[in-house]
């Protein structure tokens, strides 16, 4: 379905909505006259056409409420709708951070409770709920790392990152003023312990580990890694983006991590991918607690809750106020509904679902690291490469069957990678349907490769020329102001 730009529907005789004459008393001042615009650069379109335009656009979207979304690393799982209702309760959604603290004790109670739950889940001593995204949590963690070393009179400038880590990690490290140094994986897809030890020089501030890593594999020598890192005087940071594989089963604090961030939108079912703001709480051990962002929630003498701004060692504020509060409500609702037994089943089901796909597809698709996986599995499209098929062709063909494509060409250590994360919310029937489709695509790769090369066939637009689109970027929303 082709949908024209709304500006092409512009017609001078049409208008959308009718605003009555103002009957507000003159003494109520409006905006200053010089700030009022008389002519607005908006298309004149009839109201029903406006509504249809945007509704029609909206149905072109793929999202997890429409279909399976096995986008590796991103954990596009289904979010229970009851969380939305709870976050929308007027007592939560109507709050303003500037109102007197005595009038939002309930909200503070929820935050304080959530901090305690995250401590229990991660095995850490203290949590800040302030960071507004996973990457923001990483930056917060790196600032804490810097403050820790500085307090010890120690200047360190390098942070180590395995080549199987999340792509945001090096960027966060550089943003924090550190130099990022890659650490290679071994033949089992885990951190090469000997290579790590060689890199652990006295100027290393931290090792940043994604566990399980982006190959979906658990770092099973994490105890030895933690010992080596701590012996070198560095901190061990965990990117907790894959925590849906561990929650209720294993705790970063017990593995020897000093800092861990959580992605509420990946593990604790808050909206993801344009559905709402992110949230990336950071948990630390007791020694690092003084460095957490300002302010901290504390119990006042009269037993009520308030904010503690008197924390001289803090790295300062990481957010204007106290974090993306509505996300915290959703996460608290999710944890409360599942309880500890339910959270454990989240991780077990995430692992079971990924291993089901691994077992069912490994005869057809090359599995470079053939091992029990955690929440996701990374195949290579090399088996299909004989007829010139690449990962992108398989991904595009999946769209024809109503699936979102898996992550492709990442992690970089797998050639033509197909990174599949089914998530814990999918049923066996959904996974079986996906397996059938993947096996059909494998047959097509051998028998009718042109079907893959030209895919997708059933989508509103077919294969896009992504190179030209990137080289001659045109994001104008009005056809008459196109600039090439």
């Amino acid at each position: 379905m082709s949908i024209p730009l709304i500006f092409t529907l512009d017609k001078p005789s049409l208008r959308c909505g009718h605003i009555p004459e103002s009957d507000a008393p003159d003494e109520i001042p409006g905006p200053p006259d010089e700030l009022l615009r008389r002519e607005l650069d908006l298309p004149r379109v009839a109201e029903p056409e406006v509504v249809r335009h945007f509704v029609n656009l909206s149905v072109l979207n793929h999202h997890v409420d429409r279909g399976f979304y096995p986008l590796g690393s991103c954990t596009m799982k289904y979010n229970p709708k009851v969380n939305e209702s709870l976050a929308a309760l007027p007592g939560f959604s109507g709050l303003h951070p500037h109102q007197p603290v005595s009038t939002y004790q309930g909200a503070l109670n929820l935050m304080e409770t959530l901090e305690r739950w995250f401590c229990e889940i991660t095995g850490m001593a203290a949590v800040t709920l302030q960071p507004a995204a996973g990457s923001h949590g990483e930056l917060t963690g790196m600032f804490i790392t810097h403050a820790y070393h500085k307090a010890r009179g120690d200047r360190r400038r390098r942070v180590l990152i395995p080549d199987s880590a999340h792509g945001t990690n090096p960027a966060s490290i550089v943003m924090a003023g550190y130099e990022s140094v890659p650490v290679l994986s071994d033949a089992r897809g885990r951190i090469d312990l000997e290579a790590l030890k060689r890199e652990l020089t006295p100027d290393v501030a931290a090792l940043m580990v994604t566990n399980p890593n982006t190959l979906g594999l658990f770092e099973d020598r994490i105890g030895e890694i933690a010992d080596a890192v701590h012996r070198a005087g560095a901190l061990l940071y965990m990117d907790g983006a894959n925590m849906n594989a561990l929650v209720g089963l294993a705790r970063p604090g017990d593995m020897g991590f000093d800092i861990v961030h959580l992605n509420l939108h990946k593990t604790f079912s808050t909206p993801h991918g344009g559905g709402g703001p992110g949230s990336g709480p950071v948990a630390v051990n007791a020694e690092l607690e003084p460095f957490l962002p300002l302010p901290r929630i504390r119990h006042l003498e009269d037993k009520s809750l308030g904010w503690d701004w008197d924390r001289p060692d803090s790295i300062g504020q990481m957010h204007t106020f106290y974090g993306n509060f509505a996300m915290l409500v959703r996460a608290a609702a999710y944890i409360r509904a599942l309880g500890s037994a339910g959270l454990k089943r989240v991780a077990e089901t995430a692992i079971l679902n990924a291993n089901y796909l691994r077992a069912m597809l490994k005869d057809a698709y090359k599995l470079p690291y053939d091992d029990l996986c955690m929440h996701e599995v990374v195949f290579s499209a090399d088996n299909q490469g004989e007829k010139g098929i690449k990962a992108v062709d398989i991904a595009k063909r999946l769209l024809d069957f109503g699936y979102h494509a898996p992550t492709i060409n990442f992690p970089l250590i797998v050639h033509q990678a197909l990174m599949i994360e089914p998530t814990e919310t999918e049923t066996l029937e959904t996974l079986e349907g996906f397996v059938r489709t993947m096996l059909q695509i494998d047959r097509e790769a051998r028998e009718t490769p042109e079907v893959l090369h030209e895919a997708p066939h059933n989508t509103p637009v077919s294969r896009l020329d992504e190179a030209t689109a990137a080289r001659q970027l045109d994001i104008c929303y009005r056809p008459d102001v196109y600039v090439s």
Partner: protein
Amino acid sequence: MEIPSELHYTRDHEWLRTEGEEATVGITDYAQSELGDIVYIELPEVGVDVVQGKTFGAVEAVKAAADLFAPVSGEVTAVNGSLDQSPELINQSPYDDGWLIKVRLAKPGEVETLLSADDYRKLIEQSGGD
């Protein structure tokens, strides 16, 4: 896969062509074919010092972005300005029109630490690339 015998190579898939005290740097045919259609390239300015093994820029393709690592240390004496408008030159002509920067060699001995064409060919065969 084209691997000119007279060039020197890095394990990160850059090539180096020495011309007296100067050298030209680019990415290999293998690198451009693995990256696919290149859409943007970020290069240093003339006069900047690059350091062997350290990042000096980045290349962005449709499927991935990658850092560029300097094969040798030295001052940048020229930058391929055509790549701003036509990054596809790297895909079309990785060893000629798609060159990236020219460097005045600060430590000529570094050239000896680079891979020969034969060693580079072995490297990409081992990595299982096509």
